[in-house]
């Protein structure tokens, strides 16, 4: 574990644009005895979109799990808004404004749409606000508010998952494989929403296997291979290199 570093605090509590909303410094993480992240470093400023790209098993999902607090950091530092949050639980990080939407629809299939929104609010938003935010952006959810979430189409389920980010006003949004199993048109619509959220000042970290979907809205892209970041750069640069890495160099 790294020694306790000096924390750049902001005296009056205002968001300082120079302090990244989310920062990983040489983060290591392991499943049991097997280390899978060998020192990931990332900086994510408010209002920017960072795309994590790479093939299966590279460590994208694990990186997001570490950021959301589901997997403990075994080395290095995780910082949110400049504060070291190593060891914080997922519920605590959610309270601090980190909204994480996991792979494969972050919804409760056996609850209705409304009940999902109710839970999604957590301690940050009431049902009214969640419903308003969700139904304004996705009117189709409003039509289905009493339906069991598991019985909706994949696109609608993903809308519901994304609605959590709309209503709870997070500072950091973590998205894992938003495009998985969805029609291209829906994917485009989803990322449009994500882009809007970023414009409102949210820091967005997107893990995506399907790179073309996310690159248009990303400010920066990072290529994750074997638990390490091999390249960071503009989306255009990374796009050119992708095929080489996907096919194995």
């Amino acid at each position: 574990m790294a020694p306790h570093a000096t924390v750049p605090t902001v005296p009056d509590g205002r968001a300082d644009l120079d302090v990244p909303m989310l920062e990983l410094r040489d983060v290591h993480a392991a499943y049991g005895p097997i280390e899978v992240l060998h020192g990931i470093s990332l900086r994510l400023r408010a209002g920017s979109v960072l795309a994590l790209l790479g093939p299966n098993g590279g460590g994208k999902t694990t990186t997001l799990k570490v950021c959301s607090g589901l997997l403990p950091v075994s080395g290095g530092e995780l910082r949110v808004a400049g504060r070291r949050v190593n060891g914080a639980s997922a519920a605590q990080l959610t309270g601090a404004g980190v909204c994480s939407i996991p792979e494969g629809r972050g919804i409760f299939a056996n609850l209705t749409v409304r009940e999902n929104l109710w839970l999604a609010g957590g301690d940050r938003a009431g049902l009214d606000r969640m419903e308003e935010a969700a139904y304004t952006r996705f009117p189709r959810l409003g039509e289905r508010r009493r339906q069991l979430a598991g019985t909706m189409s994949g696109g609608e389920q993903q809308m519901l998952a994304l609605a959590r980010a709309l209503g709870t006003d997070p500072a950091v949004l973590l998205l894992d494989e938003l495009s998985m199993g969805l029609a291209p048109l829906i994917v485009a619509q989803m990322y449009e929403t994500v882009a809007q959220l970023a414009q409102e000042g949210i820091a967005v970290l997107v893990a995506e296997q399907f790179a073309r979907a996310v690159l248009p809205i990303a400010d920066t892209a990072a290529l994750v291979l074997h638990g390490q970041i091999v390249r960071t750069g503009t989306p255009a640069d990374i796009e050119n290199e992708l095929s080489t890495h996907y096919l194995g160099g």
Partner: protein
Amino acid sequence: MTIFFTYTVLGLVLGAVYGIAASGLVLTYNTSGVFNFAHGAEAMLGAFVYWQLRFGWHWPAPVALVVTLGLVAPLMGALLYLLVIRGLRNTAEVTKIVVTVAIMLGMVALSQWLWNPNQPHTVDQFFGYASSFKVFGVSITTHEVITLVIAVLIAVGMRLLFHRTRVGVAMRAVVDDPDLLQLNGHNPQRLSLISWVLGAGLAVLAGVLVSPISGGTLDANVLTLLVIDAFAAAMFGRLRSIPRTFVGSIVLGLAATYVLAYFPSTWSWTSNFRISLPMIVLFAVLIILPQDRLQAAATRTRERYRVPSVRKALAGGVALVVVVFLLRLLMVDADIIVLALGMCFALMALSLTLLTGYAGQMNLAVCSFAAIATLVAYHAGVSGTGVGARITEWGVLLAVAVTAVIGAIVALPALRMRGLYLALGTMAFGVFVSDMVLADISPHVLPLLHIKFSLFTQGTLIIPAMRIGPLDLSDHTTFLMSVTVVFALLGIGLVALRNSSYGRRIAALKDSPVAAAMLGQNLVRLKLSVFMLSAAIAGLGGIFMAASVGAVTADNFSIFLSLALVMLTVSAGIGYVTGALLGGIMAGVGFSIVISSFNNLAHGGGGLSGLWSTLAHVSALLPALVGVTIGQSPSGFLHELFLGYRRMAQHARGLLIGAGVADAVLYVLALTKVVDNWWFGFLTYAGIVLLPAIAQGLRPALMTDPPPAPKPDWEAVGVDQPYTDQVRAALDTALALPATPRRTVPVAADPGPAAAPAVAHAVTT
């Protein structure tokens, strides 16, 4: 018509109690995924606490109620969750079942310690029996009205909780995906805690309400089983839906009272049928209900078992027979009988090693299969009369065959069930056997055959010893050695079976039914065969057990005994034949020896008799404590012990041999009466259990794995630094490849052929 109304009211009240109890069960199951077998015991303890406050200490009823429901019940639920249930995530279904069963048995033992079962504990209804109303010409007491009102309030309250409050909605979500709930900013542990507190409250409420209705005299076993009847009601709602659970409760309550009202009084089995009705319903509901479909993902659990080779099993079997023979030389007749009984239970436990340990199926009614075999052997397998009566080898074979067939008949509908449902189904069968078959005491005329017959004649069966060929087992030593040899042979047979292709197929069935099915296995045939085999072993053990006891009653086959056997076998290590040996001996005789020796000391008088009787009660709680620890080491304590001995055999062989020699000397001293038998037994036992720990203390460096090597500087390796085996090992670890054998690590100069493929593999990856 009055009869109809009277029994309807009675049925509704009974249904209301079932509903209250069952809703608590559904609540805890949904938020923690643990089916609480101890629910009935919680109700029982609550009823006893209420009795103590209200009738023992004569507190006013409201105060007693507030303390029982507002203080004792929540405390009980919270302690259960925090101390035990919380540690059960990611364990196999059998572990979860065993732990709550252990809690149940512990609570029953605790209540019998605190409230002497030989003294009557009578509770009165609220406002007394005299306080009643007349509705449609039917008298209904205030207590019954209160019960009905509370049930309705709870049904409505639960509905509101689950659908109108955020905590309730979150409770419904927690079992689906606790991680996601955390990401939503909720604390799943807190939600489970709340539900266990509420669940305990509902159980206690049901206990307090039901005890005055069902006779008024508290009995720990009866009260516990009464609430277990609520399992059937909970199953109506598939352990999920509260409204359906209440409907099921009412149906169950009404059916039970209508049976009493309208079945002809000439039928001698009516009252038995009424008692076992909930279990019949439970079995039926389990069969009819649509089951969860096979899940594709293999469940990852924390249980691990090593499969021994047949050669090791052979050595173990021979060692067992020799050790038992040597022990026998030390013993007097009474001890030999006790040890033989323990071996009989070990034989019965062996059926669990095959069924649960190898094939991952559940059976909570081992003793009921034993009962069936005993019945068959008694009615059809005895030749000769009086002292000369013996069970013939054909009788044993017939009994074992019939038990196997019954096993298949029970398993056939159970084939679609898995895990918890299967456990509940077999438990229902077990209680059914106890309440219907073993309660068939008075002779009645059989239809068609016109002979007087009863299955369990007069409530006690005299089971003679066996004669197998020239071998007469009426001699104690012969009996003990025969059981031991049978156990050893079956144990070796099971290990051989596990190492055969059949064994690999049932292991596949355990790990992933879907994968096994996709490999072309016939799951039905596999399950059926394993059930039959297991039932046959249980039956064989049962005949030996009955012959060892001599005169058996229904208590020898009670469901509590089956549960204790399962629990102790699992905590010893259900995946091992040794686990069956230890679990069986513990369940059969181990703890009763400890308890009775403390009791003897207590009756011996002297200043310490209070202490001794307290110790006797504490040891009655021991089995439950053993069972609860399994949450910490789900593979059983033998697994840990074996691990220690394996390390010792590798690193500290001298100590092992020294200890063996010391024990041999001790044995000779005991044989020549220089040392007391008790000391020999105690020191040997302590030595076996503590030796790995002692070795750990003496040679810590040998017993622990070497610390991980420092990480090589990857960029310099192969350029400035040589490729060493340490580097290769580190590479393999980093890439999660199978580790190269540790022996090659110190050889730095010559990589050797063994290490080369791993390196090649690592480089190309």
